[in-house]
């Protein structure tokens, strides 16, 4: 029978089918951060259970860590406690932790690929919905809850129902100004935040093949914003050359064995998908979200929509409440919306390529009066690489703050946040109410669009620069 990549990975990881239960699936890699793990370790201790495969786990601290003055103790005592508990739990269980002081520290979904910890064909989990990022390598990677974190630590498996499969084919060539982020946002805009519910998405087509590994990570990262369990891109030469030589990549004879397996993974030519969506890359303009859900998004040359433009009553109501929260009026041109703060970073857009693209736009500009612009590398390795290339200078000369790595303003748990009514251009993944601070107004954009907005003080169509 012809199989999709998802079905191949699924079949090879089925440990046991139990009558009347969901099948148990084997987990190869388990990623961890400080926010969703403490209660799982507590559960293990209370039930006298042990971590089954400590070597399958890689942990970091990212959500609560400060992005400046890191040598000082964390001011928030509850965040400090969470960081301390993480260190204690990893030490007690013999887990590999890149703590705040480690040169390897950074956002989990940026750090893990840097070290080659995830390979094609793996099943990868993390107590974090953006685990979908690692689908860029052709790994089945998905977010789980804390009870499941405990379950995986104790058993190395998870009971899972099989998902449906969705093929999203992006044909043609993206314009120079449209990035993976714009593709991700355009897809969520098209199918909605529930469009992928119950599905694993495979992204294919010429425009996807052309994306760099960083771009594929950005795209898969936001599969969850379309409601999908995971996103996948078939591994190819780009994947292999990215992995080769990295710390946890296979070496010597094992490399050849791994390659043979990886090359067997792409979906068979006639494999059947439950749902197929086709987009033309040429139609994708730089995107800007205008509402409080990632599906509320439009091309930068568009206008804020009016509630009555939606036929569906639920969407009409959602538009009304989003506009009230965002302080926007219908038919305002997107390029007339001012910004107060610009954030480049996160597991969506905190990689070296993102800073290179943003620096190209920021070069020789000055951050507009009244605007704060912060660049937060996804990891210390990204930070160092950017500094080696002189990108930090470009940002600093343009009036940006150049920070230490962390999740930072993506979810504002570490003190970096918007105040009530402040409006951001943000390269992160969610524009939910209060996500970047209570009353804060988030517009999701690509790194190039963020850098252009910082200089202009409002959104700019980068195609006209």
């Amino acid at each position, binding site marked *: 029978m012809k199989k999709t990549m998802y079905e191949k990975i699924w079949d090879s990881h089925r440990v046991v089918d139990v009558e009347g239960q969901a099948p148990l699936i084997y987990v190869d890699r388990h990623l961890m951060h400080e926010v969703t793990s*403490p209660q799982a370790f507590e559960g293990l201790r209370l039930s006298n259970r042990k971590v089954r495969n400590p070597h399958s786990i890689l942990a970091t601290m990212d959500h609560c860590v400060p992005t400046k003055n890191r040598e000082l103790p964390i001011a928030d005592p509850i965040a400090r406690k969470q960081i301390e508990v993480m260190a204690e739990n990893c030490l007690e269980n013999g887990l590999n932790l890149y703590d705040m002081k480690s040169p390897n520290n950074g956002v989990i979904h940026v750090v893990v690929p840097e070290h080659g910890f995830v390979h094609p064909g793996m099943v990868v989990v993390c107590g974090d919905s953006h685990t979908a990022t690692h689908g860029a390598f052709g790994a089945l990677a998905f977010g789980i809850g804390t009870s499941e974190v405990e379950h995986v630590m104790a058993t190395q498996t998870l009971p899972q129902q099989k998902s449906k499969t969705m093929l999203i084919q992006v044909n043609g060539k993206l314009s120079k100004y449209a990035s993976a982020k714009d593709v991700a946002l355009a897809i969520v805009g098209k199918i909605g935040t*529930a469009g992928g519910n119950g599905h694993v998405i495979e992204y294919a087509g010429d425009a996807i093949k052309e994306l760099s590994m960083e771009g594929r990570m950005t795209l898969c990262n936001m599969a969850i914003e379309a409601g999908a369990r995971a996103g996948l891109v078939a591994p190819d030469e780009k994947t292999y050359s990215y992995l080769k030589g990295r710390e946890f990549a296979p070496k010597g004879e094992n490399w050849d064995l791994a390659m043979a397996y990886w090359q067997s993974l792409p979906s068979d030519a006639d494999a059947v998908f439950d749902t197929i969506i086709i987009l033309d890359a040429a139609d994708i303009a730089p995107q800007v979200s205008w509402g409080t859900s990632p599906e509320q998004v439009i091309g930068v040359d568009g206008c804020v929509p009016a509630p009555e433009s939606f036929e569906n009553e639920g969407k009409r109501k959602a538009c009304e409440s989003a506009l009230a929260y965002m302080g926007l009026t219908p038919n305002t041109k997107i390029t007339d919306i001012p910004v107060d703060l610009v954030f480049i970073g996160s597991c969506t857009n905190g990689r070296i390529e993102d800073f290179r693209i943003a620096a190209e736009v920021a070069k020789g500009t000055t951050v507009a009066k009244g605007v704060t612009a912060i660049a937060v590398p996804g990891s210390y390795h990204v930070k160092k690489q950017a500094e080696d290339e002189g990108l930090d200078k470009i940002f600093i000369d343009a009036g940006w703050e150049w920070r230490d790595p962390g999740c930072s303003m993506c979810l504002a748990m570490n003190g970096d946040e918007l105040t009530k009514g402040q409006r951001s251009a943000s390269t992160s993944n969610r524009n939910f109410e209060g996500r970047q601070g209570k009353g804060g107004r988030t517009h999701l954009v690509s790194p190039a669009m963020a850098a252009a907005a910082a200089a202009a003080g409002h959104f700019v169509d980068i195609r006209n620069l």
Partner: protein
Amino acid sequence: MDPYKKHDSIAALMNRNNVDTDQIIPKQFLKKVERSGFGAHLFHDWRFNDDGSDNAEFELNKPAFKGAHILVAGDNFGCGSSREHAPWAIADYGFNTIISTSYADIFYNNCFKNGILAIIVDSSQLDTLMAEINANEGVRFTVDLENQQVTTPAGNDFTFEIDPFRKGNLLSGLDDIGLTLKHVDKITAYEAQHKQTYPWLWA
């Protein structure tokens, strides 16, 4: 986990679509290292005014909905982050049943691991239930998981589908990990084979 028992309870109404986990439990409450006490912060940013007083406009603050164990909500409930703090907060506040047309996948899984029955109905059924609550705020529904049935005073009764594994665990209050560890020999055998087939993962 306490076994899920047949009960009748006030059904509270939240007529909004795409309620996300950032609203269910805002991020400033995710720093605790314990599982308990999140109910006090459920829907914090909607539920409370800036001065900490109750926001009278917020639906769950209506006196008629106090003490509700059933939450009737709009489409795609629980989208966004995987934080299990969301169902912890919902359960700790007192809800053990949610009725909606759809849920985000991770949130749905998390509910059942925390003793919350997430019932799926079609949109016309949901409209009917919402209308019944609107017409009679404080109305009590009866939820019978054993027979997969919900009954209401206006007679908008319905049966619902549920995965038998999830149903069994809710009814017995059984721990998932314990169930899985019954198959530990199979896991060990799989791992032995895994080491042979994918030696690079174990190098």
